[in-house]
């Protein structure tokens, strides 16, 4: 009996110690990183309860185990066996029923939490998301805007209607805590209410090919005022885009080009478009060419034919009209 009391006390101490340790590492009361959505609150709360249960169960097994290893260690020269104890039915029933109660509790709580996460606001702002190797494209249908960055107003539920043009991707903003696959041939839905202004990233969480690691796009949560200003600015840009260059820029965004080709010279998955036109291109097969209209057209239609040295042949072919290609080239010419 005395031994059970000692072990009982040690279990409680160990459970507290485990919980405090996890809390010190910053992972007990919430998941990482900072929570930036209303949905995260409910998820973090469930996580916190789970951490408490985990700390207790960990102690419940580890303490009697180490206690036995120390106290019931065979002494030198002792060749006898331990106590002949084959089992105890009430104990077995106890540790079957006890966890069962815990399981039902957590399953119920889990379902409840899922309900919270999926709670739909009929006023939610709808945005279309297109995932493609290896970039995200965001479309605001009400405003005629296409963007490579996801701008969201704070404290208002948005529902993302997501489609994929090629393989399965997964939309994950760690700060929002929620993840949803984007599957070819269907529209999946991602509902979130951002609560914290800031700049985050959507990171593709389902392996989608060679440059999967780099399939990240900015997600910016701002005040309603700034968001409205951004909408006006984008609409003005769209309206001004009647010139070939302007059309080309819109195409570059809506086709996801600038997800892989930077316009400022920084290297991404593909070569930058900055200063591209008229430059000398070195190809992986050792040949070279000057980047003229014909080269750029071919690179859009047959991307793996002339692969620039140092880059992977991962770009999918695009079917664009001659006019669209001309507009894109006009846009590329402005980048220098």
């Amino acid at each position, binding site marked *: 009996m005395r031994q059970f009391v000692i072990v009982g006390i040690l279990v409680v101490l160990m459970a507290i110690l485990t919980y405090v340790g996890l809390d010190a*590492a910053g992972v007990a009361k919430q*998941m*990482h*990183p900072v929570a930036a959505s209303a*949905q995260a609150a*409910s*998820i973090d709360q469930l996580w916190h309860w*789970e951490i408490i249960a*985990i700390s207790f169960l960990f102690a419940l*097994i*580890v303490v009697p*185990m180490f206690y*036995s*290893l120390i106290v*019931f*260690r*065979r002494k030198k020269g002792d060749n*006898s*066996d*331990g*106590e*002949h*104890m*084959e*089992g*105890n039915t009430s*104990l*077995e029933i106890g540790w*079957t029923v006890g966890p069962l109660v815990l*399981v039902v509790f*957590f*399953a119920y709580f*889990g379902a409840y*939490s*899922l309900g919270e996460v*999926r709670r739909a606001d009929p006023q939610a702002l709808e945005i279309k998301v297109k995932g493609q190797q290896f970039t995200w494209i965001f479309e605001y249908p009400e405003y005629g805007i296409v963007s490579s960055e996801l701008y969201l107003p704070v404290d208002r539920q948005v529902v993302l209607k997501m489609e994929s043009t*090629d*393989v*399965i991707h*997964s939309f994950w903003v760690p700060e929002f*805590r929620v*993840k*949803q*696959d984007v*599957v070819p*041939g*269907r529209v*999946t839905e991602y509902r979130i209410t951002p609560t914290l202004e800031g700049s985050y990233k959507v990171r*593709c*969480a*389902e*392996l989608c*090919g*060679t440059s999967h*690691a*780099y399939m*990240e796009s900015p997600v910016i949560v701002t005040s309603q005022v700034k968001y409205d200003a951004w909408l006006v600015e984008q609409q003005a840009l769209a309206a001004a885009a009647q010139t070939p260059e302007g059309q080309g820029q819109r195409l570059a965004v809506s086709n996801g080009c600038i997800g892989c080709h930077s316009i400022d010279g920084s290297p991404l998955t593909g070569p930058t478009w900055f200063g591209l036109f008229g430059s000398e291109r070195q190809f992986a097969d050792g040949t070279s060419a000057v980047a003229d209209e014909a080269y750029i057209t071919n690179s859009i239609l047959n991307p793996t034919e002339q692969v620039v040295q*140092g*880059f*992977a042949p991962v770009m999918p072919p695009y079917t664009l009209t001659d006019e669209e290609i001309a507009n894109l080239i006009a846009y590329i010419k402005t980048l220098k």
Partner: protein
Amino acid sequence: MKRFFSSALSLGLLWQFLGTLLGAGLVTGIRALMGLSITDTFFFTEPAWVMGGFTGAIAFLFGSGAVSDWMKWARGIDTPDHHEDHHTGWEKYVNVSLDHKVIGIQYTIVALLLISIGGLFALIFRTELAWSELQFLTVDIKLFGQNGPQLYNTLMSLHGMIMIVSILLGIAGIINYAVPLLLGAMDMAFPRLNAFSFWVSVPAAVLLLMSLFLGGFDTGWTGYPPLSVRAPVGMQMFFLGVFVAGWSSILGALNVIATVLRMRAKGMNAMRMPIFVWAAIATSLIALTATQLIGLSFQLVMFQRLFGMGFFDAAKGGNPVLFQHLFWFYSHPAVYVFILPGLGVISELLPVFARKPLFGYRWIAMSSLGIALVGFVVWAHHMFTSGMNEYLRVPFMYSTLLVAIPTGVKFFSWVATLWKGKITTPTPMLFVLGGIIVFLLGGLSGPPNATVSTDLHLHDTYFIVGHFHDTIFGGFVFPFFAAIYYWFPKATGRRMSETLGKWHFWLMTPSFFVLTFGMMYIGLIGMRRRIVDFDPALGIDTAHMILTIAGYLIGVSVLVFFYNFFNSIKNGEKAEGNVWNSRSPEWQVPSPMPAHNYEQPFEVVGEPYDYGLEGSQYVKFISPAKSGHK
């Protein structure tokens, strides 16, 4: 050397090579006649490679002689019931043998070989991940038709599947070696099928490795379409390799079930079987009935690629999510295939080193079956974010959490077994205890993935990676090592060095804790699975460096194990008696075990684990019948 080149292994590999050329050549010839292209990036076209891979695997079986008895029977030639082995020493292990002990060791050796290959791959990509940005797998390099990130994806994907196959072979190794001995049987029920099951896994491993050289594949071991439809021809070799390895698993499981049902010693009723046998039965039931689904799902993608059948192509009315259902219907129960034998080893060895009966034998036995049954209805918990029907997620959450109950019964019973024992901790026991704790961490990190809303964050991150490495190391790797240290003297008559065994344990265990805790931590922060490079803004560069160092330490510990293993075969301390003072029947006779196991049959006269009960016996050897021949 000459005897090596004329062994079944070498002949089989030679035939596989020729068979591959023959099959690929045949398809190429037909294509030439039809006016289709006859060469591609990797010399042959994809259909030619697939046919070649298939004929190569079949040719291996003929070349190695794994099917020659059946061929003789088909031609009306009799073969002796029991092969007398003509080979001695190492030659036994590279030739076809019908002895379950030889086959068990063959399985174990191939499993260890594959573990080292899979581990080597892990170290390569772990090094790449040590720091953000690409280190050496850059886009400039070109190896086997792949640039750095592609090669990373191939190595990462192959690490997964090679480890899975090595685990399947590893458990087959322990089961094959131990189960007939524990039952008091002369051999497995179908010795030729047993040999076939082993030999078919060799060409399967070759096919898997071939994928690396044929452009690789960048899908992870799950091979989800549409990505797997677009991957290079290496993808097909991967599918074929898994398909062929599946035969090994299914037929091996059938054999185990038949053996346990029909070949138990006199008096060994179900509740007096050694507990490991229960685990072997539970695992075999899953392997026998679920493996078909992974073969099927991979075959469907194979056909989609070869014949344009749109099973998973949305544009043709197919459904990419259907693949995930088919795939996980095997691949989730498969993890229970991996861990149940390991948990069985823990239950089998604990009483020996605690010198106490196994606490709650019946409950532990039933919990294995419970895990196996519940395991069949939890598969969609891998798909909470997949876009499947929303409401289905709730019942799968309930069923998944239910797994905790039989698993909990095992943990509590193990702890109760230790309580008031007289515990000693030689190397096998250390690995048993390590296995319990590591598996506990795997078990406790499971529920947050089971409850849907928390899983929405954790899914496809390093948290999951850490979680399942805990379950697999605790449920398989630690017990596998424990089993090797424990049964090594039975197999060789010598024991492995205790000192090196302890080095192995004390190097591996802390490094492993660091590795998996670190994985879970960076996963929470935002480290996604299967990425070649990570965003330095996440601030996890240091963490990754620590993980890489921990990974290398595990590698070093396994090298220590290998040295100990191979050195002890020749130079180990002689151990021909009951080294662990166990009650189990195989330890009641001298080691190494003779060819046909027990010279005298035994009868079960008591409970298997009655340590501490004065004058009790588990088995009694029966004197040979006086009228019998011999």
